[in-house]
């Protein structure tokens, strides 16, 4: 009897383990091993969440290049994408980028897309990679190359043209694809280390002496302040296997050091892409962009040109290779040019995961360098971008 009482008391004192179930929980036999972290269930109402990582190895025979001979993450991008209302989407891309001396976190893009404001008319608002030319809109991991063409860096900056503002886009009801876009943006000025007192006396075009701020050589020119863009994109199908896209672009804004340089900027450009799909997986791409920069400074006008030409061939589901030629003048008062010859080879594993090697020969106004990259880019989760 005593033993029975002790057993009963023991049982009563261990309710969770033996006799009772806590509310909201049940007892079951485990049929499959619980998954480890990273393989758990996903609630149905979450937005699409994804991470893209870009890891680069870079070598160069330019001994003054401090970033050479390193293996490091170039970028980690996290995306949250989903519908916020019928015909309204939100896309937020947060990125940590490698800069010269470390990593910086930033909002890469954060935009609301109004898919149909009126029939044929859509709008986007927020911080956006501006649809200007063919490559500017695409994120770096979506491009068929490791670097970006010199003209984009020289005229728009390391990250291309990214503005905060509003864009309207209208699909013109024509028998062929014709889309016209207009955007109004604010782009922050760069900080500048030149004081207000740095001026010089120069002769203007009438022969009079004028005082102007000194324009300091910098490799960080880009457009800034209030920027207005326009783009007309057309596309023509030559049968089911060939398509040609032609774009015309125009921009009006100011320089990124406007306070000091007082430069008004206009950029015009044309882009052309010809794509041919010989069979299910094969594709030829011939892509070209050309921009003309007119930078009006107190001392006169600077006119600069730049562009690139890319040929890419995808011969299977998994492999593509390309060559690119760049020519670009800088945006600075003392003109220099850059010629770049590149070759790249890509092995794709999935839509967002690839391995790539690229060779680049750069001739920067006589200073030559040979550079190479090995790139691994991976994607986790559903990740998408607008039609490019």
């Amino acid at each position, binding site marked *: 009897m005593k033993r029975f009482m002790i057993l009963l008391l023991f049982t009563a004192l261990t309710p969770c383990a033996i006799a009772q179930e806590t509310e909201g929980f049940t007892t079951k036999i485990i049929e499959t091993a619980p998954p480890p972290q990273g393989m758990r269930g*996903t609630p149905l109402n979450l937005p699409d969440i994804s991470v893209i990582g870009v890891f680069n190895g870079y070598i160069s025979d330019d001994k003054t290049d401090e970033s050479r001979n390193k293996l490091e993450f170039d970028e980690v991008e996290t995306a949250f994408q989903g519908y916020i209302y019928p015909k309204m989407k939100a896309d937020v891309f947060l990125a940590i980028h490698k800069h010269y001396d470390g990593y910086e976190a930033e909002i890469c893009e954060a935009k609301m*897309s109004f898919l*149909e404001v009126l*029939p044929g*008319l859509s709008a986007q608002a927020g911080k956006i990679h501006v649809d200007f030319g063919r490559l500017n809109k695409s994120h770096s991991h979506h491009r068929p190359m490791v670097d970006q063409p010199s003209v984009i860096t020289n005229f728009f900056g390391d990250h291309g043209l990214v503005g905060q503002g509003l864009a309207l886009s209208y*699909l013109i009801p024509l028998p062929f*694809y014709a889309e016209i876009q207009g955007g109004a943006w604010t782009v922050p000025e760069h900080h500048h280390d030149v004081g207000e007192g740095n001026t010089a006396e120069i002769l203007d075009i009438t022969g009079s002496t004028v005082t102007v701020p000194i324009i300091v050589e910098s490799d960080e020119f880009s457009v800034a302040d209030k920027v207005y863009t326009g783009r007309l994109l057309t596309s023509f199908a030559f049968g089911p296997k060939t398509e040609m896209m032609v774009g015309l672009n125009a921009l009006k804004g100011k320089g990124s050091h406007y306070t000091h340089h007082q430069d008004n900027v206009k950029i015009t450009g044309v882009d052309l892409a010809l794509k041919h799909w010989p069979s*299910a997986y094969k594709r030829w791409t011939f892509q070209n962009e050309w921009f003309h920069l007119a930078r009006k400074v107190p001392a006169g006008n600077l006119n600069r040109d730049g562009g690139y030409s890319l040929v890419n061939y995808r011969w299977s589901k998994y492999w593509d290779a390309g060559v690119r030629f760049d020519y670009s003048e800088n945006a600075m008062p003392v003109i220099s040019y850059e010629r770049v010859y590149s070759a790249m080879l890509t092995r794709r594993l999935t839509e967002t995961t690839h391995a790539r090697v690229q060779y680049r020969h750069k001739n920067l106004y006589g200073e030559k360098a040979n550079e190479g990259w090995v790139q691994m880019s991976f994607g986790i989760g559903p990740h998408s971008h*607008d039609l490019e």
Partner: protein
Amino acid sequence: MKKIFLAITGLALWTVPAVAAIKVMTTTTDLKYLVERVGGDKVSVESISSGDQDLHFVEPKPSMVVKLRRADMLVRIGLDQDMWADSLVAAARNGKIVYGAPGYVDTSVGIKVLQVPTKKVDASMGDIHIFGNPHYWLDPDNSATMAGTIKNGLCRLDPSNAGFYAANLEKYRAELALKVKEWKEKMASVKGMKIVTYHNSWLYFAQAFGLEIVENVEPKPGIPPSPGHINSVIKTIKEKGAKYIIAETYYPLKGPRMIAEKTGAGLLTVPSSIGGLPEVKTYFEVFDCLVGKLSQ
């Protein structure tokens, strides 16, 4: 001035269709066929993809946007098989064909979908479709359900012709039943036959006709075969006595040819949709071709 007026008039006539048929865009050629069967002369239909394309790998083009811009209805396979259509629909700015609109038709509705994951899936498992195996049109009986879903969509847009669409649907289903009976009779002699397929796309077909898939050439969906996996497939074929290796016309055939040579299994390159081979022009001819090759 007269020339300008004529040019504008010409352009307007070019862009406005002469017949007010329902303009339907489909993501596949098989869906185009089904819409034509149900819609008859009340619809004008165009497929975005062609039958010789890998549906996982269709590249969106601006010319497709133009067609979707003018469409009254979009008919798609769904289950993420034609996910590329999403960016096209967004670019087309056409409220008639967005998800939830009357003109949005997903023919996977009502289909008994196979291989629906019951636990978390990720890329370690290959290109797994989170809503299940999307190749359901390869069971011909499923086309009766698909045609019914299309009929419902057409009736939403054009209720005045509901009787016409319903009659066409019944006619299609009756014809289909006869064809399915014919195909099953032909396949009866090979029922239980073991096969290897390149991609995991023939499950519905195998289930419909009593075939057993013993292995895929791809080690996991969408992952190209390694030499090690090819050796494993060769071993499996020899062990289990698989008679055929089935590959869609667009897949690379180097691996399957090597397997066929080393095992003696027949290599069948077959269409999985209308247009997969030039002579396959209807949905019924897809199965005529498949059944003809397998039942030899």
